[in-house]
């Protein structure tokens, strides 16, 4: 993974040195952070054989609700816990519906994606909400840079580390992996499968909320149309990073690196001046090559070790 990431960066850099410009790499990283955070959260449902297609909607709703609260006078830093609580609750709601209506999470979250984005639309009444206190430290600091580095990036690293610990070293994480690994045995062993499902979807909701909060801090406005299609990119990033759709296995750092690779591919193509009608083709082709290379590399390594 990391190898592919580095090869990609350096490979492009050789031909287009401007790509290696610190500012370009940092901005690309920051832009990838939103999907990266969602991908990190997505590892939890995926690892237990569930999926969350509502992260894009949750992301948009978080931004809009945050912007509305701030516009209407709530101190931004106070609004943050409200946003995160709401996003987590919506994630949990996905889990509750999946569990109690007994519908696959694919369908539930496909519908709640519309639902959440719909609430955002209704809330914003079709307008962008930008009358927020831009001079507040929430926007200046959280949305800005520190020593030239977008604050979002260290946060991504910290949150990634925390989620990695949660996934690999906590009881909750182990239960998530256990359920994904063998659902029958998990039920048989008496693991609280329903509760864990709700919690796993709550985690992915929370991360959508975190992404929404950071995007709000950066873009300084709430916009209900944001984040469309993010769910697929986030799932793809998680899978590229080694999470199995079939459950049981997952990697939070892998998911984040997966998101970075996808973002770098798009950005790199810009440096090669791909004509607009070929952009889509080139993006698809490069992703395929990058992922195939990664897969081949892994096979090679496990074979030689």
């Amino acid at each position: 993974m990391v190898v592919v990431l580095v090869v990609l960066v350096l490979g492009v850099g050789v031909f287009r040195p401007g790509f290696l410009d610190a500012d370009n790499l940092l901005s690309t990283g920051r832009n990838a952070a939103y999907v990266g955070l969602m991908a990190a959260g997505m590892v939890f449902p995926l690892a237990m054989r569930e999926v969350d297609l509502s992260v894009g909607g949750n992301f948009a709703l978080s931004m809009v609700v945050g912007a509305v609260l701030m516009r209407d006078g709530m101190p931004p830093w106070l609004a943050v816990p409200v946003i995160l609580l709401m996003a987590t609750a919506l994630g949990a709601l996905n889990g509750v519906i999946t569990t109690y209506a007994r519908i696959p999470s694919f369908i539930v979250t496909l519908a709640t994606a519309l639902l959440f984005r719909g609430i955002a639309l209704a809330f914003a009444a079709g307008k962008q909400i930008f009358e927020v206190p831009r001079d507040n430290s929430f926007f200046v600091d959280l949305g800005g840079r520190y020593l030239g580095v977008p604050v979002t990036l260290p946060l991504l690293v910290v949150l990634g580390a925390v989620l990695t610990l949660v996934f690999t070293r906590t009881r909750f994480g182990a239960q998530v992996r256990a359920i994904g690994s063998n659902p029958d045995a998990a039920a048989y062993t008496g693991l609280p499968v329903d509760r864990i499902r709700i919690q796993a979807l709550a985690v992915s909701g929370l991360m959508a909320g975190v992404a929404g909060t950071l995007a709000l801090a950066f873009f300084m406005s709430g916009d209900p149309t944001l984040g469309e299609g993010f769910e697929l990119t986030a799932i793809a990033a998680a899978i590229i990073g080694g999470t199995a759709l079939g459950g049981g296995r997952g990697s939070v750092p892998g998911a984040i690196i997966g998101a970075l690779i996808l973002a770098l591919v798009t950005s790199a193509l810009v440096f090669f001046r791909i004509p607009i009608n070929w952009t889509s083709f080139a993006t698809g082709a490069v992703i395929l090559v990058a992922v195939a290379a990664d897969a081949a590399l892994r096979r090679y390594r496990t074979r030689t070790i």
Partner: protein
Amino acid sequence: MLRAAGLVKHYGGVTALDGGDIELRDGEIHALVGENGAGKSTLVKILCGVVTPDAGAVTLDDAPVRFAGPRAAAARGIAIVAQELSLFPDLTVAENLFIADLPRRYGLLSLATMERRAAPVLADLGLAEVPTRATAGELSLADRQLLEVSRALLTGPRVLILDEPTSALPAAAVDRLHAVLRRVAARGIAVLYISHFLQEVRRVADRISVLRDGRPALRGVPTAELGLDDLVRAMLGDAAPAHRPAARRHRPRSGPGVTLTDVDVPGRLAGVSLSVAPGEIVGIAGLEGAGHLAVLDLVCGLGRPAAGRVGLLGGPGPRSFRDAVRRGVAFVPGDRKRFGLMLDQPVWENATAVRWLGIGAGPWWRRGRELRARAETNLRRMRFRGDMYGLAGELSGGNQQKVVFAKWLDAGSAVIVLDDPTRGVDVGARGEMHEIVRELADDGRVVLLASTDLAELTELCHRVVVLRRGAVVGELSAGELTEQRLSTAINAGFA
């Protein structure tokens, strides 16, 4: 003391239990035996709260209990090792051992605590070598079975229930397990032990109960009062075979069979040569990792030699598993749940999968009537007891194994490779299956057999090839083939 009385359980039209009862006394090992489908696993599932009975009562220390689920049973000190392995293949050994109650330190899983607590149990069962950080899916079937036993022991139970814990275990591991169980019983724990190995049962149990068709045939009779024949009669009733069918005369034919010539597989086999002729039943034996299973893999196309030659029915060695199957190899795997069955599909579809779906014989459209007829014939030959139209996952363990055998029988293969083919199969059916294997050999098929059950090897094989550390160390043929000598050869080699 855990007691159950008058347990009744119906699954749709099937009556799994019809007045089952059992009394587990502290400090005693109580064995439960019965034919496949007699209701043993069902009884056990009721005891530990997995299944709710339609009638009957369970009492713990004379107080009635009704467990909401296995967790509730576990909370009262009842631990179970289920018949169908219930490990988490993606989790580490340590996580598997403690999944029900993971020890933590500062909120994080404490690997150190897990290792400390697990070490003595793992050592007792001979798992000391297994790294606790390895994922369970990488372990052998035998190690996985022992891992489950370890998991149950680690909960510190007062009642320990083991549903066929030794079906995949080699003899040495069985002995270690028995030693552990005796020690556990001596501490005052009640043990329920289910097995189809009647000798083994008689060796370890203080009392024995027998279930027949869901009803008790014997209730907690002290082992000393029971002979082997009494047991078999209780289990099978009038259907009990009067005598063991005599082994037929071995008539090897000329013609191409299976040959290995100076075969090397890095890390598994070194310079192995052997050949099996049509009409022969040859056992391949060894300790875990001795290379005997690698031999089966080569014949099935699951591996290719780095050096040397494999010959299959006069042709070259198989390129792939599929190639092997299409060229006439049948492979009855030991791990039926993973490699043998589609649990969520009807039995008859499972039983016809090799011929129609694997080899591709028959028309491209489904001729259901014909498929079902074939399935029925083969299943009847296996003494299958169950609903052919039901899902494979709803069968008792032994009957599942029969389905796996039946689907390979359907293929009409010239080379039959068997890996623990009677795992979990009751004595009666085991005898029937052995008879079928003999018929196949008489019919001129090549049969290769690996088994953790030494009795199976001695009863069935014309000769047994023994491997140690990837090399053939000797061969025992008809006259010299006894369990004693085989065990010595496997463990110590030929002096």
